[in-house]
């Protein structure tokens, strides 16, 4: 076998069962690689079970920024019997497979694949001491990437500082074994170094999508979270709960999603800035509450973490198929805003601004994410907190205050009870300016108009879509949300001068530049992780624009860079 020559960007995949500690390994690798000066990206795909089954974690280690999932596997660690079958389409002759004999599918043992066998005794026990599989893998990768053993062991000692001395020693023992092993068995077979070190990003931060949304929310002044656990939205609930005491915010697990959304609306009424975090099924239950927010013009921020439906669907998988539901959920007519981050930075900014927009216009604001986005991590430069502002819009009331007074732009000054001497009322029935129930047709019409008028008022705060790639494009790919990293990497790889990518952060109301940007292209391509091309439907119903091609995926797995490259090439040739 020839020597393997890695590029400055490797993709390591560890494939095991739930309960084998893939998550810890992912954490360890992300952290050490980042502090050692690599760019990193990680994504886990996992089954809806606590133990067993087969899950896999992809970790990319690179000297360029990486923020997307690739099919390519440079190094594969199968760590249980079922590790390889689900990855078949991704394993090639270039993949370095490192694992115990029994975990390597026999069809790969034909001499054509790069297999490095971990001796049984090495991988599990050696001279009475346990070899810890996770640490072994950690050691092999750190060794291969040229991180010296002292750095690695120092890192482990800090990471595991809460463990007993003995356990720490076990870890260090496994680490040493891994370095030895790499030197003897792997070095000779691959060219070194794998990647170059960087420096600038040593001080960068590592964020999962869930963290990014949570941090953004906190920066936006989120002070109240009421939710009910549901994958993949629970990460945000957990993050907020963990920080509740430190941040002085209220975080409550409600008995159901209906309670969650009504608590949140109550909280806004009383002056808090509230968010709910949920997934499709949970949100479906909140839609009556959404309509309540619409009626009483309550701000509310809804983190809607998408997963494949309908119904329970694939609880731990990814999809972007709840956009039209978000847009038209709730009975009756009222405005709303839908935002969707593509990068972790965007998530921080959008989540922060979601609170300001909600407060300013007194409308529901959605942060639309998905499992792929939330459960993937990468490093990013320090957040500029000075740019993240909490802007409060409520006022101190005076006697005679009317909560829903008619104004030119439809926005009535929002008072809260107990702040000022006015009386603050909210009624879900159609109401007059002071919220007393009315059935007067004229007042009704004016109230509808007032509420809908806010849609125009909002245009000033619209977030325009981001164009990357060729400025003089002929082909324009349109995407939204979590696909942005993958599409960006794909178009760079394609390197076509006629090609550009338009990434939408704000999906509704549509940014006003939409049509002009679309028109400039000869051919437009919509790329969405759903089966019915929901964003294209919105664009058509709002602008009339019809896409020439659509690239859709809805099998629960995220788009890979390779897949997008292939599909785009088909459209533009």
């Amino acid at each position, binding site marked *: 076998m020839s020597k393997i020559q890695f590029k400055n960007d490797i993709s390591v995949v560890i494939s095991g069962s739930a309960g084998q500690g893939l998550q810890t390994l992912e954490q360890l690798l992300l952290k050490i690689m980042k502090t050692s000066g690599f760019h990193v990206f990680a994504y886990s795909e996992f089954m809806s079970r606590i133990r067993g089954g087969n899950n896999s974690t992809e970790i990319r280690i690179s000297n360029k920024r990486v923020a997307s999932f690739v099919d390519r596997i440079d190094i594969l660690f199968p760590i249980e019997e079922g590790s390889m079958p689900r990855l078949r389409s991704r394993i090639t002759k270039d993949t370095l497979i490192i694992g115990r004999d029994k975990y390597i599918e026999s069809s790969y043992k034909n001499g054509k694949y790069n297999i490095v066998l971990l001796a049984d005794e090495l991988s599990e026990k050696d001279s009475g001491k346990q070899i810890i599989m996770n640490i072994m893998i950690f050691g092999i990768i750190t060794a291969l990437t040229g991180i010296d053993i002292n750095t690695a062991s120092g890192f482990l000692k800090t990471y595991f500082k809460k463990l007993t001395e003995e356990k720490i020693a076990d870890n260090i023992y496994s680490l040493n074994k891994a370095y030895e092993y790499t030197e003897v068995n792997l070095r000779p077979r691959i060219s070194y170094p794998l990647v170059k070190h960087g420096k600038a990003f040593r001080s960068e931060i590592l964020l999962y999508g869930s963290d990014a949304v949570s941090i953004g929310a906190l920066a936006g002044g989120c002070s109240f979270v009421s939710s009910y656990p549901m994958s993949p939205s629970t990460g945000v609930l957990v993050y907020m709960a963990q920080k509740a005491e430190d941040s002085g915010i209220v975080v*409550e697990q409600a008995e159901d999603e209906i309670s969650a959304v009504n608590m949140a609306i109550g909280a806004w009424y009383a002056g808090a800035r509230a968010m709910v975090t949920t997934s499709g099924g949970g949100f479906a239950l909140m839609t009556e509450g959404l309509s309540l927010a619409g009626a009483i013009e309550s701000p509310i921020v809804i983190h809607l973490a998408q997963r494949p439906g309908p119904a329970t669907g694939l609880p731990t998988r990814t999809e972007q198929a709840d956009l039209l539901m978000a847009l038209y959920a709730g009975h009756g007519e009222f405005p709303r805003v839908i935002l969707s981050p593509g990068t972790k930075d965007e998530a921080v900014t959008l989540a922060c601004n979601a609170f300001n927009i909600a407060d300013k216009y007194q409308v529901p604001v959605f942060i639309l994410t998905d499992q792929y986005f939330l459960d993937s991590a990468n490093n990013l430069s320090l957040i500029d907190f000075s740019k993240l502002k909490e802007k409060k819009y409520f006022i101190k009331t005076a006697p005679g205050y009317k909560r829903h007074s008619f104004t030119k732009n439809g926005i009535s000054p929002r008072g809260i009870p107990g702040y000022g001497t006015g009386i603050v009322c909210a009624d879900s029935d159609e109401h007059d300016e002071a*919220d007393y129930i009315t059935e007067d047709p004229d007042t009704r019409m004016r109230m509808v108009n007032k509420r809908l008028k806010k849609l125009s008022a909002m245009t000033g705060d619209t977030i325009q879509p981001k164009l990357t790639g060729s400025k003089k494009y002929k082909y324009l790919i349109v995407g939204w949300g979590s696909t942005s990293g993958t599409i960006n990497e794909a178009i760079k790889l394609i390197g076509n001068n006629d090609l550009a990518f338009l990434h939408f952060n704000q999906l509704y109301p549509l940014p006003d530049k939409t049509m002009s940007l679309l028109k400039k292209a000869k051919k437009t391509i919509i790329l969405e992780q759903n089966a019915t091309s929901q964003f294209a439907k919105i664009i058509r119903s709002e602008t009339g624009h019809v896409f020439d091609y659509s690239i859709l995926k809805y099998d629960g797995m995220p788009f890979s860079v390779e897949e997008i490259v292939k599909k785009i090439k088909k459209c533009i040739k």
Partner: protein
Amino acid sequence: MNSVFDFKDTVDIAWCPGCGNFSILKALKLAINELNIAQDKLVMVSGIGQAAKTPQYIRANFFNGLHGRSLPAATGIKASNPELTVIAVSGDGCTYGEGGNHFIHTIRRNPDITNIVHNNMVYGLTKGQASPTSERGFKTPVQVTGVYLEPFNPMAVAVSLNASFVARAYAADIEQTKEIIKKAVNNRGYSLVDIFQPCVSFNKINTYQWYKENTYYLDNNHDPYDREKAMHLAFENNRFPLGIFYINNTNKTFEENLPAYKDNKLPLFQRSNIRKKIKEFLD
């Protein structure tokens, strides 16, 4: 009576003449007046139904939300600003039917709010279908052969969930109802006041007369701290006891339990942004 809670102009009250709701409104207004609750610190919360229109007739802050959802909204309000006095008022259908899940879990959560339920054993606003508390055999346009579900027993369920304060009143007795409401509002924790309320339009069984004949007041001998005794009273359905069935003040309130209020008593809206602290979270 004249109080800050009255309107200057006469209000068109959407209830039927003779409805028990008028007495409850009166008792409630007397109670909050006598308790000297500041008008701008009182929030009346309700769902949807005839009873749920009550806040429209009291000059104070109100939040009239969705059918069945008064309790979560009230919980969110109280937790965001514990300085407010929060009274949730709604019907039996709203609270025990559509809102049944919130009823049981709000009791468990124990926010410091008062929950007044106008229990007329019928859906008034939607024109007379059975409510969870309707008695067996009660006939309506939908319950054609008469109700065949076991009547929901709010007293028993509240006691079984170890609620902080559980009482029953009777609308027509304004004085007693007022007293019970006052005690409920003063109680620290979730306080249920289920009020028997005649609906003159749709409940021809449980009339003023019927309530008079089928209720009696608990006397001073009843120890409201005795849970099993309270449960025994809750099971009584020959004549229904009125008064305070049960008090349990061993548990902290929801707000007291919230880490957010551990060191900082300010309502949420008065707190400043923790943007600076977030940097620490990023370790």
